[in-house]
């Protein structure tokens, strides 16, 4: 029995925002859920997958977000309720299909949850997805609490079924990855049998007919949302300042008002249906406003659209001063924080901020400066990527032609930093490392002399690198694709992918084997274990001397996956007599350069030591130690 499948209406649980979203989908009676993992969205499908068999629903980790949306759309075209979830970057991948699906609509219910990551905490960008709702003519809801996330997703299915089109729900890191109280509702006991009615087609052609249909459905959504309980006003009737906010901004703003004692002066207009905005409701409240502050993440979406409503109703509304990102008052990048919202409110209402006493503050500053050393990004102890980057660095140095490493999305993206010895030189989108390397590999025809190397994880390979590999092979590009196969989608929580033997629900799946696939394309791969540094370095060097498109698979399980099995690990020890420390001349190769968290530099003794609480026994340090002072004992 998992938390989200508890059949106990009225029970209050502590759920992660993503679990609340999943529970809302279960309460709406979904039959199908699909996604490609991506933080901060991963636990939505992850938690549904855990209960799939028990609940009698189908859940999959799809090969990418576009396919996930297509899988969900097939279910929704057959009268079922289907959920699809993705992060902001994923919406870009799914958009080609989304911007056609909106024209045909669906016959069941289809809710697309997109989880944005303001400040890019686990992302390469902090793109605001909400803008997509406007050209797609689709309604967009934004929850502001965990319980509301559950209720809103449930309602989104009702709305989707009513208008026979996709409904978008936008969450953010501070909702999806936070936890709070959620009161469970009832679970439905019956689901429809899927049936695709062939009497009518779901075709976009001609757009001159289907685009107006999409507009009609959108107007219907506007009508259904105009009195939505997800939009509320709290505060004095004629506030000195009105805060217009949505999503994570609601809790931060409410608390800042309380903290500054502004309850009688400041009102809160909480908007849950952010597209289309409830126009009459917005105009009604603007009529009582003198100053308006917009609090939202990341782009000025509410701000732009409220200002547009204000412009159209200008004749009937008072003069209002607007403060937000567009006015230059609030930061136009990054996520919200309580401190930021407190500062904005304090400034606009001329209310002093609470402060700590001076002596404590000085002591606290001292703690930050002297007692809290920076923790730079690093691969985990025993991470195979550290070994792969070490071998790559060595092979490129031996090759001597200043080879270019094109990076990609996954844990190994950290290869742009010191933990990957700064080897990766580009980082963009899923599969774009392979695509760029294939492109760079063609520049030899124009006189380029540097070798091209693409790095990509196993899951990323299936997601988006296969077309790039085929493109390179077809055009006879000279590049080396290195697939870092750690047997999981590690960055997002070890989800299975098309190479796995089990699927999301734990059922047997047919693995699409990496090496078979590459061989079938005409690039039979070389396979090495990155923990064998010498062998791996030699393989990379040899492949760099070969023309054409070549594939190297570096296969070693993710250290965290291995740790989960609680299997006995190899014991690594540094012989304190053989480690001659500062005398060695290696200049602390194992700690200064390799930077594995499993090692410590004992400055007092001037020697390296193993931290037995952290070391996972990979044995890389033993291979690079020039004094052979590190012993590895098999478990």
């Amino acid at each position, binding site marked *: 029995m998992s938390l989200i499948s508890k059949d106990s209406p009225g029970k209050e649980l502590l759920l992660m925002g993503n679990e609340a979203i999943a529970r809302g989908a279960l309460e709406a009676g979904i039959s199908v859920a699909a996604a490609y993992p991506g933080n901060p969205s991963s636990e939505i499908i992850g938690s549904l997958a855990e209960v799939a068999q028990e609940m009698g629903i189908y859940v999959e980790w799809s090969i990418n977000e576009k396919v996930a949306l297509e899988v969900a759309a097939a279910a929704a075209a057959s009268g079922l309720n289907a959920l699809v979830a993705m992060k902001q970057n994923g919406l870009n991948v799914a958009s080609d299909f989304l911007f056609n699906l909106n024209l045909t609509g669906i016959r069941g219910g289809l809710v697309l949850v997109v989880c944005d990551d303001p400040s890019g905490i686990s992302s390469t960008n902090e793109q605001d997805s909400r803008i997509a709702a406007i050209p797609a003519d689709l309604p967009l809801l934004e929850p502001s609490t965990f319980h509301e996330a559950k209720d809103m997703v449930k309602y989104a299915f009702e709305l989707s079924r009513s208008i026979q089109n996709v409904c978008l729900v936008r969450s953010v890191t501070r909702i999806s990855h*936070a936890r709070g*109280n959620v009161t469970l509702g009832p679970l439905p006991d019956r689901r429809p049998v899927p049936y695709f009615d062939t009497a009518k087609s779901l075709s976009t052609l001609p757009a001159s007919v289907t685009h107006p249909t999409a507009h009609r459905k959108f107007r219907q959504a506007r009508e259904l949302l105009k009195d939505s309980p997800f939009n509320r006003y709290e505060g004095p009737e004629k506030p000195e300042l009105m805060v217009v906010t949505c999503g*994570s901004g609601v809790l931060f703003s409410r*608390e800042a008002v309380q903290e500054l004692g502004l309850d009688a002066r400041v009102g809160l207009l909480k908007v849950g249906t952010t597209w289309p905005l409830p126009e009459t409701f917005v105009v009604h409240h603007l009529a009582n406003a003198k100053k308006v502050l917009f609090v939202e993440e990341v782009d000025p979406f509410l701000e732009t659209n409220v200002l547009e409503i204000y412009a159209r109703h200008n004749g009937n509304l008072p003069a209002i001063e607007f403060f937000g990102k567009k006015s230059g008052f609030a930061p136009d990048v990054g996520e919200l924080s309580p401190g930021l919202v407190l500062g904005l409110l304090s400034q606009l209402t001329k209310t002093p901020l609470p402060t700590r006493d001076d002596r404590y503050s000085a002591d606290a500053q001292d703690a*930050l400066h*002297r007692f809290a050393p920076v923790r730079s*990004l690093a691969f985990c102890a025993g991470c195979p990527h550290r070994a792969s980057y070490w071998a790559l660095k060595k092979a490129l140095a031996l090759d001597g032609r200043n080879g270019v490493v094109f990076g990609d999305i996954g844990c190994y993206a950290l290869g742009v930093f010191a*933990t990957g010895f700064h080897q990766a030189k580009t980082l963009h989108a899923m599969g774009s490392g392979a695509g760029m390397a294939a492109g760079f590999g063609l520049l030899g025809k124009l006189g380029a002399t540097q070798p091209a190397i693409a790095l990509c994880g196993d899951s990323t390979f299936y997601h988006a690198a296969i077309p790039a590999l085929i493109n390179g092979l077809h055009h006879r590009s000279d590049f080396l694709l290195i697939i870092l196969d750690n047997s999981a989608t590690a960055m997002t929580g070890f989800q299975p992918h098309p190479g796995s033997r089990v699927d999301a629900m734990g059922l047997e799946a047919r693995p699409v084997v990496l090496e078979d696939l590459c061989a079938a394309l005409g690039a039979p791969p070389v396979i090495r274990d990155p923990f064998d540094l010498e062998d791996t370095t030699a393989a990379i060097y040899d492949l760099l001397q070969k023309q054409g498109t070549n594939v190297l698979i570096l296969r070693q399980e993710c250290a965290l996956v291995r740790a989960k099995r609680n299997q006995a690990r190899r014991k690594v020890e540094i012989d304190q007599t053989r480690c001659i420390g500062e005398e060695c001349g290696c200049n602390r190769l194992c700690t200064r350069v390799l930077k594995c968290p499993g090692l410590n530099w004992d400055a007092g003794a001037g020697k390296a030591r193993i931290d037995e609480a952290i070391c996972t026994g990979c044995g890389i340090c033993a291979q690079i130690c020039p004094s052979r002072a590190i012993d590895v004992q098999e478990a």
Partner: protein
Amino acid sequence: MTKDPFNVVVTGVGGQGNVIASLLIGAMLVDQGYKVTIGETYGASQRGGSVMSHVRISRTQQLGPLMPPGVADLVIALEPSEAARVLGTLGNPSTVSVVNTRPVHPVDVICGDLPYPDLAELFAKIDSLSRESYFISATDSALELGNPILANIVLLGAVAGANLLPISREGLEKAVSEYMSPDKVAINTEAFVRGIDLVRGRARD
């Protein structure tokens, strides 16, 4: 808890189990009718970086997932320099700290770019920034129990033993069973009881 809202920070380094520790605190309190919100901050890093959970507790309202500066009532630190980091921004003269004594060196220290603070001075600094502080050798106890990850539960036991939160062995057993899995109850309870014993043997102001 004498205050509402009551703000707890559970801090440590990625992989030390602070997310589970905060989940269990939250689960035990939601079961007693509290509104609990938990937010996590991990800077730019999940691997080897600082990870901090804000656990915000109220009888009446669902608070935001992050607390404003300077309002922490209780800091539970799985790593001592992380306690200093949290107190630096969120601490105040009433904050109580419960701290694991075992350092985890940042890669910046391992590679020699930065020194790790002297432990005695670090503990003194934590103490000077706290109304009360408890230093617990949680990782050593966890290693004795066979897995360093249990240090988080040892610290929760210390929090219970010092009566800093209304949590108990029975509450932990229920929360582990419901939110993790029933087969993990025994080992976690053992770690929790170790923590209670440690703090009752070693508490100091």
